[in-house]
């Protein structure tokens, strides 16, 4: 079985985002598609899945020309897609989500027993046995929702499985389960098209790698014949000298001190300190309680017990506004739900946390606001560079993330909490983000970098805290830490 993409072009309005893309893959292959944010990966995938039409070019599957007008056509041809954005229906059970449109019937009515049994089988086959098919999809964690998405795609026994950044919300054992699944599918002769920003897993999984830059394939290669560095250079179109910044000078005094902080059911007895000029990483498996801790520090949830002090003075934030005015900022992990206002422009989003900062009388000084925002757009290299007036929803994921970061930097925080800030962000942009927080740290800010990316949580920080089951299970200096050590703290059984 062979899938061929030939010279595919696609434009949104007057802007062409794919300029003739070619791709080829056979059954049992894992074709990795890599590229910077906005390169056109998701667009290509939407064309393969029939969700978007192509402007010109051809798709061939097994010597047959495909005309995909609807997702249904693609599915009929055996192509299934797991999208970057979660698409489950929160109010329906996992079973219904898995079997949507194909629920078993008896006498016209749905046969629930059979349906749950089929769902169970699907989940088991996919290696996600931990999920109860009767729960509502909306009650699952994001990671588990992602697993359901994958199991759902498998339900129709596809010949081609397209995965758009499936690992972005997975970590640890869940990630292992995904890789094992991909290998099994490979053995069954399924062609897998795999989009990811995590180059380590790309080189581990892929049989071939397609690098896209600005809507054009710049190279098709194999893991054995390339290196992460070469891929990064190809994607960025320039050589990235170093990914992580140089070591920073010794940090200054205590800025944020957390002592014995608890919220029952979320985290327990958490103590740590952030110093001025320091970047502290925080690693943990999904569900370890890092995000909950971050929200609590930010005043979004109440402290049950324990203390937080800023500059040695105890503080208690009842709502985010209090935390912000004390100099905290929080970049949340869920961009879509808590990071941006999709209906508004990039400019409005960037200015959102500082609406009162630039005023003339009671009115916003729009000229100054515009100038400030444009400065941030330039500083963060948010693309397209004239995006200020565009709805933020039309930007690629990475550029959205940069806009959110820009929003918080405008607020001038002293303590910056970043929850998975590089999820779905390409390497060049990551480097920008690392540089930015490095510069902040050097000017006396403290940064808490929550991440599930082992390399980054060690490489970009001074110290790493590890959380497991709601508790701090270890702390290591970054310059001596190894990935195994950090991972070890995160999964080791409690002593």
């Amino acid at each position, binding site marked *: 079985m062979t899938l061929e993409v030939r010279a595919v072009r696609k434009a949104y309005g007057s802007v062409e985002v794919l300029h003739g893309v070619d791709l080829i893959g056979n059954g049992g292959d894992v074709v990795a598609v890599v590229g910077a944010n906005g390169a056109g990966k998701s667009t290509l995938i939407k064309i393969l899945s029939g969700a978007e039409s192509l402007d010109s070019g051809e798709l061939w599957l097994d010597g047959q020309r495909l005309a995909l007008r609807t997702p249904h056509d693609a599915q009929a041809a055996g192509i299934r897609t797991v999208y970057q954005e979660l*698409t489950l*229906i929160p109010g*329906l059970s996992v079973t219904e989500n898995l079997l*949507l*449109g194909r*629920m078993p019937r008896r006498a016209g009515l749905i046969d629930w027993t059979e349906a749950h049994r089929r769902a169970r089988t699907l989940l088991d086959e996919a290696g996600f046995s931990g999920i109860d098919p009767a729960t509502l999809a909306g009650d699952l964690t994001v990671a588990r929702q992602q697993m359901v998405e994958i199991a759902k795609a498998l339900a129709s026994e596809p010949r081609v499985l397209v995965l758009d950044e499936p690992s972005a919300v997975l970590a640890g054992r869940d990630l292992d389960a995904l890789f094992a699944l991909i290998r099994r599918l490979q053995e069954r002769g399924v062609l897998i098209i795999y989009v990811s920003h995590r180059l380590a897993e790309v080189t581990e999984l892929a049989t071939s790698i397609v690098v896209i830059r600005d809507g054009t394939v710049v190279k098709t290669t194999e893991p054995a014949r390339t290196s992460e560095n070469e891929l990064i250079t190809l994607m960025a179109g320039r050589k990235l000298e170093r990914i992580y910044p140089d070591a920073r000078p010794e940090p200054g005094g205590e800025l944020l001190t957390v002592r014995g902080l608890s919220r029952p059911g979320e985290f327990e007895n958490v103590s740590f300190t952030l110093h001025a000029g320091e970047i502290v990483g925080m690693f943990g498996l999904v569900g370890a309680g890092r995000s909950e801790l971050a929200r609590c520090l930010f005043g979004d949830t109440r402290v049950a017990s324990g203390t937080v002090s800023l500059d040695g003075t105890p503080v208690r934030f009842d709502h985010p506004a209090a935390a912000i005015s004390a100099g905290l900022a929080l970049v949340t992990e869920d961009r879509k739900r808590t990071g941006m206002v999709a209906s508004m422009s990039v400019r409005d989003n960037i200015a959102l946390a500082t609406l009162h900062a630039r005023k003339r009388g009671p009115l916003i000084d729009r000229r100054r606001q515009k100038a400030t925002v444009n400065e941030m757009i330039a500083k963060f290299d948010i693309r397209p560079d004239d995006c200020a007036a565009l709805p933020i929803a039309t930007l690629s994921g990475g550029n959205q993330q940069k806009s959110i970061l820009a929003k918080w930097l405008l607020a001038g925080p002293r303590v910056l909490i970043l929850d998975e800030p590089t999820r779905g962000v390409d390497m060049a942009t990551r480097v920008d983000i690392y540089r930015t927080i490095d510069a902040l740290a050097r000017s006396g800010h403290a940064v808490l970098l929550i991440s599930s990316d082992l390399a980054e949580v060690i490489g970009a920080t001074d110290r790493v805290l590890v959380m497991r089951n709601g508790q701090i299970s270890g702390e290591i200096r970054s310059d001596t830490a190894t990935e195994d050590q950090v991972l070890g703290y995160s999964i080791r059984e409690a002593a």
Partner: protein
Amino acid sequence: MGILVVLLVVMVGVMALSTDGFLTERNLTNLLKQMVTTGLLAFGMLVVILTGGIDLSVGSVVAFTGIVSAGLIADLPIPVAMAVAIAAGIGFGLINGILVAGFNLAPFVVTLAALTTIRGLAFVYSEVPISPSDPGFFSLGTAMVGPIPLTTVIMFAVFIVGGIFLSQTPAGRAIYAIGGNAETVRLAGISVRKHVVLAYAISGACAGLAGVILASRVGIAQPSVGVAFELDAIAACVIGGASLAGGRGSVRAAFGGVLVLALINNLLNLHGVQSYWQQVLKGLIIVAVILVQRRSQRRRT
């Protein structure tokens, strides 16, 4: 759902204790009769609300189908006349649905326009009330099945069949799913358009049935009937916990909402509360009901 049952029990208790009229057979029969229109409209409304839409036109459809059914029996056998009228209701629903789903227009405005247009059409059909002389026309509205009015039996049947439809058939589940995430449903190869149109057609059918029943019950069909009926229907759904954003709501709870509204009216009437104070209290009680409900929901999560 649980709290709604508690609320209903409390209300019934209060009423039984505070008035002697409540537990009489006649009053209970009235209660059963009077909730039929709101009940039928509420079921249709629920289906539309589940898709994330709204149907403001139901009151006008009630008027139109009522007067048409009464008018047509001059020329057609009664069941045929009634069927034609209900078919007209379905037709209006189809048009609403096609405008909403096929042309991607906002349901609020489409059905608001339909409210205006269909009301006008009811008057165009007949400016004056029509009072059929054939007493057969009234039997639908007045027949009893044992101690229970036939119309109430019909309403229960609609709720039961409708409940099964929504919870146990592929189309019903699709309607729920569309309100949750229409895009996903489309990607699953299910036609969103078809199901949204179906939802509005069901609402139109319910409104048509309600219109025919009302005309038959009252014995005279008026083109001016049914103003603001949509508000009670929507209120019943929301009191029953349906979300106007779509995807959430249950038939049983919507029926609970219908009961709550009927009980409020009955309570105020039996206590002889003056009409405008009834309005004041009705609004306050509705707020109290949804407050209690919200509290209990929050405690659960």
